[in-house]
């Protein structure tokens, strides 16, 4: 399960090992899979507070004259509608509409924005942006000098405040705080769990102290296992599974993250055509009514024929049943009963529109 010489280590690697984490190779990084157990960690985030090391994510700085307008002309979402301090979910697509990566874009000034890309795609994103950037705009890989710690759950605000960040941020906004001990820390009201939560981008040298502070103030260390079950319950897509160079935002029902009215962005013509024709398959949720756990790449069957394939699947600790995201023929409707072929057993489930659980990242913290 652990790899592999050459696995990159975050600034918190020794902390994870000391906490007894099971480590796993993810996107070329040695990351904690779980500490106390996926279900305990998942439950902590849904009902209390958990902390995740997500320093493997790709921090990218894009700066130079009209850097924001440049990104707006490349990425799908309408970045110019966002002002300083606002954070936007967006996509970098290929010309054919396939997804290179999904991103969070921190709208700074007209001349500077920051991007958080997926670990395994960061270098590709950097390469694509550099290839498209006009002279005067610099695309900078910030991974070597930053660490990212996510603090998530209904009690996350208490923890962030106790750690020295006495802030009141709206969902999908960020601010830069000069912490007396840790230097400049970007604090954002973002996350991948569906709960009220924060992500702290701090200098690499401060990572251990920030991590130890959030744990000391009550956050349970959480690994990639819980991160996956939490995001799956929300129906958040995972690049490489639910969106990919072969699965476009139209198919994945991410049209809300596409600025259709923009003059242009990479992949616009192809995506507009897909939208006009209507995609053959759509990304939907399946909630199993039979006992069992669907995984990715399992056939979905209805009326004796294959009507789709799962793209992600797992056990929902909240619902106590199997759930999956699946690409389903457009003839399949929400509410239909289908079966997932789990190693030869056809397990019945209901087609739903995610999220599978009622959590909302927009909820004010109980302490707010």
């Amino acid at each position, binding site marked *: 399960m652990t790899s592999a010489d050459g696995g990159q280590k975050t600034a918190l690697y020794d902390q994870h090992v000391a906490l007894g984490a099971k480590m796993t190779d993810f996107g070329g990084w040695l990351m904690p*899979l779980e500490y106390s157990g996926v279900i305990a960690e998942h439950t902590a985030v849904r009902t209390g507070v958990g902390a995740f090391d997500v320093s493997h994510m790709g921090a990218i700085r894009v700066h130079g004259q009209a850097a924001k307008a440049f990104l707006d002309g490349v990425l799908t979402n309408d970045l110019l509608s966002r002002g300083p301090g606002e954070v936007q979910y967006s996509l970098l697509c290929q010309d054919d509409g396939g997804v290179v990566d999904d991103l969070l874009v921190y709208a700074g000034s007209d001349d500077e924005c920051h991007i958080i890309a997926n670990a395994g795609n960061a270098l590709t994103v950097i390469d694509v942006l550099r290839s498209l950037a006009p002279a005067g705009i610099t695309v900078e890989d910030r991974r070597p000098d930053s660490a990212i710690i996510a603090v998530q759950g209904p009690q996350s605000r208490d923890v962030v405040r106790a750690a020295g960040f006495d802030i009141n941020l709206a969902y999908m906004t960020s601010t830069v705080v000069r912490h007396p001990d840790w230097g400049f820390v970007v604090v954002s009201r973002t996350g991948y769990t569906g709960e009220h939560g924060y992500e702290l981008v701090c200098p690499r040298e401060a990572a251990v102290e920030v991590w130890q502070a959030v744990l000391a103030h009550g956050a349970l260390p959480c690994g990639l296992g819980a991160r996956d079950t939490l995001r799956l319950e929300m129906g958040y897509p995972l690049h490489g599974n639910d969106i990919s160079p072969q699965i476009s935002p139209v198919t994945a029902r991410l049209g809300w993250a596409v600025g259709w009215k923009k003059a242009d962005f990479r992949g616009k013509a192809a995506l507009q055509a897909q939208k006009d024709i209507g995609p053959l398959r759509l990304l939907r949720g399946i909630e199993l009514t039979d006992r069992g756990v669907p995984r990715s790449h399992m056939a979905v069957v209805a009326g004796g024929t294959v009507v789709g394939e799962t793209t992600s699947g797992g056990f929902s600790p909240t619902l106590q049943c199997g759930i999956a995201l699946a690409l389903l023929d457009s003839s399949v409707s929400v509410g239909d009963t289908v079966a997932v072929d789990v190693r030869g057993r056809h397990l019945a489930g209901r087609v739903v529109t995610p999220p599978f659980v009622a959590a909302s990242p927009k909820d004010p913290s109980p302490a707010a």
Partner: protein
Amino acid sequence: MSSIPADLHYTAEHEWLSLSADGVARIGITDHAQEALGDIVFLTLPSVGATLAAGQACGEVESTKSVSDIYAPVSGEVVARNESAETAPETLNADPYGAGWLFEVRLTDASEVASLLDAAGYAALLGQ
């Protein structure tokens, strides 16, 4: 270091077997297996009355992150299955050698037990 009780028999597939005087064997997964699997969320067990051949895949243990087959350590007829563990699969994590047992088999050939690992052999397999 995982727990390896001295009085049980083991397989390389990380199952344990406890033989009673009446020729019935109780079977489960080891502490090492439950630790490696992580939180166990579903069990599929063989039906009572089923006839198993040693080495046959006869069930599944599914955790939040993966699924593992259960192989029959010995040949025989299934005489009991642990329905309370099916209802509460987390019992396998909490008590793999006790309340987390899986099923019981009446052995066809008691000599098959001799081919299983003893505690020292299983510990060596785990590198402990």
